[in-house]
């Protein structure tokens, strides 16, 4: 108990000033000069209901924000930048962001997700809703305290006109220069292995000061002479085992076990009372 009290006092006495953190940012796209693919890059907004968006790549005048409660709002892009807000007032959680570039023979769509830390419904309906002809949809999105991370496998569904697209190629590019190709199965699901490419690379600190980097997935499809190209970009983090030690963790666990061993010593038993009552 003395140890715990001392520890709590030590924590309470800490007065170090730290810079503002970037909150519980969920995987949404950020900076990018590392790819020729279109990117939707997010920065923290003034409050939990807003964010700053920057578009790299395609020419678009509007960005559409789809909310988890079914709402939909358009925001004007000025110099490829927009201040976006939640689609339904006061309702947060994951939002789907999308820009669209349409020509007679070509439809380009760039999408990402934005997490507003306001409370909101689960993104299940958001992800089931069809937002464009050709879509790359995370299945599922990372939950709280999770993120896309290097060395992990995450699944994405490729849909065309709302239907899963089998045998579809999905190209992956990462900010650290990795490239890969994945193919969807009969259910339209591609299992993407995030490359282990953080070693020695400068990263940006996210929540918990773990570096993150951007990635983009691209797929294309031709139907009735029209060429559809869709991208989905977000960020992924470094493997949790980088800069962490399972050995140290296990050592402190064993130390705790050893500390409890004195409790296992037998004490003098009192006379059992159930016989006397």
């Amino acid at each position, binding site marked *: *108990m003395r140890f715990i009290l001392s520890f709590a006092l030590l924590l309470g006495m800490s007065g170090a000033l730290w810079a503002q953190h970037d909150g519980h940012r969920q995987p949404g796209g950020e900076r990018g000069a590392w790819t020729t693919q279109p990117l939707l890059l997010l920065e923290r907004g003034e409050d939990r209901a807003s964010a700053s968006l920057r578009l790299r790549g395609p020419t678009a005048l509007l960005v559409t924000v789809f909310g988890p409660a079914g709402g939909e709002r358009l925001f004007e892009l000025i110099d490829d930048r927009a201040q976006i807000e939640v689609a339904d007032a006061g309702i947060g959680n994951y939002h789907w962001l999308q820009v669209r570039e349409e020509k007679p023979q070509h439809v380009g769509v760039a999408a990402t997700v934005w997490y507003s830390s306001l409370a909101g419904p689960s993104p299940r309906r958001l992800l089931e809703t069809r937002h464009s002809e050709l879509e790359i949809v995370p299945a599922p999105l990372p939950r709280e*305290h999770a993120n896309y991370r290097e060395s992990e496998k995450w699944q994405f569904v490729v849909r065309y006109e709302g239907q899963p697209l089998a045998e579809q190629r999905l190209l992956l590019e990462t900010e650290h220069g990795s490239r890969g190709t994945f193919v969807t199965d009969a259910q339209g699901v591609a299992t993407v292995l995030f490359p282990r490419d953080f070693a020695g690379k400068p990263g940006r600190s996210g929540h918990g000061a773990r570096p993150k980097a951007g990635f983009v997935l691209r797929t294309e499809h031709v139907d009735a002479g029209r060429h559809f190209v869709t991208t989905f970009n977000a960020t992924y983090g470094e493997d949790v085992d980088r800069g*962490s030690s*399972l050995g140290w963790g296990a050592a*402190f666990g*064993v*130390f705790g076990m050893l500390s*409890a061993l004195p409790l296992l010593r037998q004490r003098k038993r009192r006379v059992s009372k*159930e016989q006397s009552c």
Partner: protein
Amino acid sequence: MLKSWIPSLGRLRLIVQLLMLFLCVYGAVFVGSYSADKLSRALPALSCAYDQMNGGYCVLIRAQHTLHHSIGMVIARAGEVTFSTLLPLLFIVGAFFAFFFVLGKAFCGWVCPLGTLQELVGRIGRRFGIGVRRIEPGDLWPVSRVRPVKWLLLVGLVFLLPLLTGLGLTPHALGNPYCDVCPARIATTLLSGNADQLALNLGNAWSFGLGALANWLIGFMLVGALALRLPFCRICPLLAFNAIFQRLSPARLSKPSRAKCGNCRICTDACPMDIPEISQGEGKKAYNEDCTLCGRCAEYCPQDDVIRIQWAKVNVFRSSRAYYKARVREALPDGTVKPAAKGQGDA
């Protein structure tokens, strides 16, 4: 048939505990990846948010996040607190209270996954004949030395440090310090096959220190629970949070009078929290802040109708000599299974 499956309150509680443990740790497998959001609103105070397979988030992480990201940062930026700033925290407390209005402190004794794990370890200890150690004078320490710790953890780690971090006065690594030292974070993620939370962050001294303390606690808990019943529950800030509302809930322990009490102290012996007030006190004093409404004191009270578990004044369970005699044939009040009952006990 039902009687053979559920012969006692203890067996019913074990079944409920195992079901809730399964929901808390693996619930998302059955109700979908995003169910935690929904379930957290319906059933706050469930499992660790670091467990990616769980069916709900613990209320303590939501409280820390709100104080850190919402209230603390808004105060730091604007220098003022408005109703809308406090609204998320009020919602959390409101949802928490709604949950505890129904269950009261039975959450701790019937639902909490970490409590269940400690009890399961304790059962192993009893099976191997490891004697029970108690928080009481003459054994370890008096309860008066242990009880303040949970309040200290609640105020310091759940409320104060996240708020100070939001204000920019303490390092970012202290944004959710209770979660960082909570052994449930490690226990439930390990149960879902994920050892990430056991690893310590070598890049930040605060993270390393808090993580090391959590690992020490889970190690201490796993071995200590073999002899000391519910070692972590005694300092758990959720028990303190819960105790704030315990008089408001219709679920409660009732010992109206000591007139018929035999002063045998068996109820305290049976209590996994070693609460002396249940045998020595009456009325409000008997329903102590450490009570988890597990019902063992009522099960092991050899006097008729002295100790009751009530919901809205209706007796859900009450002590009786006949029940006590049947119960004690299977297991002693401290949970030790009698030799003849081994293999069929459920203490």
